[in-house]
């Protein structure tokens, strides 16, 4: 598809999601108390959008991922929270 066709197909949806992200960050800013590691992880992931090549989705996912390689001793619970508490991976 041409870029024009893709814009016609997806621009409004992407625009809506972009404003949702902006409103989410505004909402968190207006909130009280400390934020946990997820907010920093989210802001770091946002930087992946500035890449000049089409690997942004992979970059966002990698920046939110656990980069370690060894299995852990015991599960802290069953669920996942969407971000890794440490420093994520930079996608090259």
């Amino acid at each position: 598809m041409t870029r024009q066709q893709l814009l016609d197909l997806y621009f409004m949806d992407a625009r809506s999601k972009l404003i949702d992200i902006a409103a989410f960050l505004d909402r968190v800013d207006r909130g009280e108390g400390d934020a946990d590691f997820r907010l920093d992880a989210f802001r770091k992931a946002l930087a992946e959008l500035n890449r000049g090549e089409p690997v942004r989705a992979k970059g966002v996912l990698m920046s939110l991922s656990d980069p370690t390689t060894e299995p852990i001793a015991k599960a802290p619970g069953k669920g996942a929270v969407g971000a890794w508490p440490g420093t994520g991976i930079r996608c090259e």
Partner: protein
Amino acid sequence: MRYIEPHGHMVSRVTDDYEAMVLAGCRAVCEPAFWAGYDRSGPEGFYDYFCQLTDYEPKRAAKFGLPHFTWLCINPKESEDMVLAKEVMALIPQFLERPNVLGIGEIGLNKNTRNELKVLEQHIDLAARHDQLILVHTPHLEDKYKGTRLILDAMKADTRIEPARVIIDHVEEHTIQMVLDEGFWAGITLYPESKTTPPRAIDMFEVYGGQRVWLNSACDWGRSDPLAVPKTAVEMRRRGHSDETIDQLVFQNPIRFLSQNPRFTVH
């Protein structure tokens, strides 16, 4: 349109979903064993679940003319208890000859623990000893990248396993390449929030190719859509893909993988 739903947890769906899927063109549904949303209290709970998957659920689907197939295992969310896992895996062989059983799945990892990995290796051994196909669940969100790497290492470490007989499910943009590069099949799961949306799934299909890829809804008791596959097919049409290309991805590809077990037939 015609399609296969290769991954749907129908025990947690209402009967109306079967009707809607058939009306949308579904020709077969495949149901991997999974976590019930709570931990079972013992192996008896799994025995009953395996009976449900191999006896009751195929009958429920058959009321709508829909062939129902299944995969058996103890899921990774309950694999931390290795005693329970051993007891459940001992139950599985007696079910493997039932007419709708396709293989071992969905095995894999959840939080990437040592015990989960040991139970995964035992499942791989079980599949190899009984010459079964394998369907693998990869972990959620921040755990997926690490878990996918651990799973691929475990698969490659067992020389009896042929990658072409294993599907690694729930791939995303950061894991699909490594799965395909190692010769495995890749499953793309369509969810409203986590995993992948239809536009992203089509992006991956366009970037990485669709030779060894299938789409699934993995519909269950959480936020999910049993019609996610046909809806993605509609999205593919909007993106200019031909009916033949769509049919290849949503119908012919799953048949090509699943038919490696001769029990899987679609009319």
